[in-house]
């Protein structure tokens, strides 16, 4: 029960950082060598690796954030995450494998909101000196057509 609470806290902090646009905090939810990927379920089901975002380590995540802040051009938009059904699939003393559902609404220019992405997180969470961190987080989305573009990690 305590473990479930701690993992929920990690997840809540993670989505709050993104939804509050504190993107510089986003890599800190991972271990330094942590992986983050966004992969369409149609590829995942076929065992194919191609996806939208593949960050192998915090360095690539930080590059993503700098690029988003400094280089990439897009309409102002925000996410609101709805996460549910956190399930612990396996656990040892320092590593937990979890799965949960996510729904991301995207609001563009504070005018219109649409369902942007729906899928599940497949996570490996490890205990570090600083607390629980993601060693791997894979967002496997079901609505394969990405509307216009994806800038912000989900």
């Amino acid at each position, binding site marked *: 029960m305590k473990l479930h609470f701690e993992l929920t806290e990690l997840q809540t902090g993670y989505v709050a950082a993104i939804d509050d646009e504190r993107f510089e905090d986003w890599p800190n939810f991972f271990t330094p060598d942590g992986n983050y990927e966004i992969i369409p379920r149609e590829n995942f089901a076929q065992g*194919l690796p191609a996806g939208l975002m593949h960050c192998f380590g915090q360095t*690539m995540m930080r590059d993503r954030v700098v690029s988003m802040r400094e*280089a990439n051009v897009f309409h102002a938009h925000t996410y609101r995450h709805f996460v549910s059904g956190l399930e612990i699939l396996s656990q040892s003393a320092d590593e937990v494998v979890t799965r949960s559902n996510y729904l991301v609404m995207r609001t563009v220019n504070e005018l219109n909101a649409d369902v942007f992405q729906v899928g599940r997180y497949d996570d490996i969470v490890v205990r570090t000196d600083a607390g629980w961190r993601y060693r791997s987080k894979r967002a496997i989305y079901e609505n394969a057509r990405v509307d216009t573009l994806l800038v912000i990690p989900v």
Partner: protein
Amino acid sequence: MQVGDGADVDKGSGDPPGGKVRFPGSDGSSVPFEVYSSKEIYDLEQERIFRGPTWNYLALEAELPEPGDFKSTYVGDTPVVVTRTPEGDFAAWVNRCAHRGAIVCREKRGNAKSHACIYHQWSYNARGDLEGVPFRRGVQGVAGMPGSFDLKQNGLRKLRVASYKGLLFASFSDDTAPLADYLGERMLPGIDRIFHKPIEFLGATRQYIHGNWKLYMENVRDGYHASLLHTFHATFNLVRSNQKARVIGDTSDLHTCGDLFITPDPSGASDYKDIATFKDKLSLEYPEIVENRQEFEELVANHLQCIFPQLVIMQIQNVLAVRQVLPKAPDEFELIFHFFGYADDSPEMRRHRVTQMNLVGAAGLISMEDGTAIELVQDGIKSGPAGHSIALMGLDAAEEDQERVPMAENHIRRFWRGYQRLMGF
């Protein structure tokens, strides 16, 4: 003006094609906005381009490795299924039951010996031949199909299928030149280079853009916008505007092949310093994301090859893909990236390719802005007074300079000349 295959164009009943649309000239330098928004012109394009004398990309052979493998896709907005037959060759047919017109194949991809329409269970083989009609003799010999009903005459509408170096294409037209001739000798070397050995399919990603499909076909022929809209390279000081380039067209004013070569700059200086987006202090923590591991004789950083009407063959550093454009409405299209590597890639090389997928596609560090730019044009032209866009860069330049400097808009002009010819505009 390019005078072309006038015989390929159905001029209809003598009415002006496309209603009132008028291109201000014949050199492709000016495009009336209504061709991006008119439903009438969209429908005419389906007939004269996608179901006309063109070859449309369907799939990579590597997506269909086994007999019976199939994939649902589109030619223009017509649903089409491509299959590998039990004999090992490829077939394509319109995904519309010969009986009542229902979609027959409802899966995106899979493997099947036959394809049955769920409505009345009419069943077709991989070639699209009708093989079974339930209750064909009726019940107790009564109320069946007429005795004259011939299965052979009631198969699915088949398309011509041809393959070049593992790229599968289809055509509705019996008159289209053989595929290699359609691609043309100026386009084949680029394809031969990318497909010089067996490939491995790595998956597809999809992007849905609320704009006209031709805005994308302009975009991929437009070297002018590259460094101005996409500022990733400039921001991180990764490329110089004096890089050697070669942008060539074919003789039919349809296709374009652009290559950007890696040219080390011994001075270490950057020509980007005069561009406002340059940020002196930024650098990548993970520069391998743009590292080119040389795998071709020529050191090409960026290869974009546009095959009319709806295919783009792409190599950016070590990420390889073919992009397929599927128009859905005058103001909507789907863009599918089919990623691949080579069958003999090491796991490490495959990982490198996956790493570089970050550069392209809907979330591409160097490309994500294209969808937004196209939608800004669509939003800008959908209402308001009549008008036209212009593409004049390099208009006065010599042909050899246009091929050397990608900023010239000559390949946009060429696209429109080919388009005007096929459409009869």
